[in-house]
């Protein structure tokens, strides 16, 4: 708008610009060639013969700066509009992912049916493992609940829901899960289901698992990928933590995500 307002005046004044670097005699009456192609304003101009004709350098600079500022403003406005449009598209994609992706249909260790929507509004830390695990699962779960306890102790932070999902549905039924989770944290929720349901949730979270050969006691170890997954209150996968991260590092990361969180679902 600034540009449009300035335009007539600026263009008008441009026509009065003299060619530069012509020497002037004191008194101003033209002794040098003047470009008569440029029209003059009329009688009012003639009275100003002894003064420098047309806009001076300062005025020209000012006009250029104003035009430049006007163009810059238009460019910034267009860029902001483009960013807003991109942001809207991103938010829409996230909203669809929040609802559609990573959903599961499992049973918790009290026998209640659970799906991802049940945890909407909460931060979730989830770990995939199995109850017959020799050392890794207990260690990772211990780390996970340590993170939960650390964050619980901080006022002003929302509570984090710890989840343990089995990759051994054959052995880890509801009773086995209940027996297992009680050793870690009162809010740790164990989730199990049929082989198809476990396969489905593992696919959603890209979890590899493979039951090993059974020995004489019908016992076996399930090889599986090891990671703690963080879901935000919209149910979107936000981060993951491997064996190498300590409880403090995980807690720090969760805190940072909490501070940066903006919901896409309301």
């Amino acid at each position, binding site marked *: 708008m600034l540009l449009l307002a300035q335009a007539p005046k600026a263009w008008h004044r441009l026509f009065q610009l003299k060619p530069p670097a012509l020497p002037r005699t004191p008194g101003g009456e033209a002794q040098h060639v003047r470009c008569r192609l440029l029209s003059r304003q009329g009688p009012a101009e003639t009275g100003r013969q002894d003064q420098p004709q047309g806009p001076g350098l300062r005025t020209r600079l000012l006009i250029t700066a104003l035009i430049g500022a006007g163009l810059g403003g238009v460019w910034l406005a267009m860029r902001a509009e483009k960013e807003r449009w991109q942001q809207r598209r991103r938010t829409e994609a996230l909203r669809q992912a929040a609802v559609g992706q990573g959903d599961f249909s499992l049973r918790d260790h009290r026998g209640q049916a659970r799906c991802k929507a049940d945890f909407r509004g909460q931060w979730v830390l989830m770990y995939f493992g199995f109850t017959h695990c*020799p050392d890794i699962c207990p260690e990772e779960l211990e780390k996970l609940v340590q993170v939960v306890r650390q964050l619980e102790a901080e006022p002003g932070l929302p509570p984090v829901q710890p989840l343990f999902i089995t990759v051994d549905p054959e052995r880890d039924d509801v009773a*086995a899960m209940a027996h297992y989770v009680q050793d870690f944290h009162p809010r740790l929720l164990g989730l199990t289901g049929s082989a198809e349901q476990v396969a489905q949730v593992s696919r959603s979270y890209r979890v590899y698992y493979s039951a090993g050969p059974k020995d*004489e006691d019908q016992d076996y*170890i399930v090889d599986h990928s090891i990671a703690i997954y963080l879901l935000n209150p919209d149910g979107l996968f936000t981060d993951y933590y491997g064996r190498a991260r300590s409880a403090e590092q995980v807690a720090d990361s969760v805190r940072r995500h909490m501070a940066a969180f903006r919901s896409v679902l309301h």
Partner: protein
Amino acid sequence: MAAPSMKERQACWGARDEYWKCLDENPEDAAQCKKLRSSLESSCPRQWIKYFDKRRDYLKFKEKFEAGEFQPPKTAAKS
């Protein structure tokens, strides 16, 4: 067979740690640690013992590897 409880797990890990400590102290003579071995076998499920043995082999190999004991063979380049 139910999974070991936390107490049973910790008993098993304790037995494993004792056994491994004994093996570290007697690198040449594993027979010294027979008693600890049988204690391990009574505290832990068989699958776990197999797993721990493999784990120990791996950790020993890793130590040797990181100490540089395995050098690539100096064969003539074949291309």
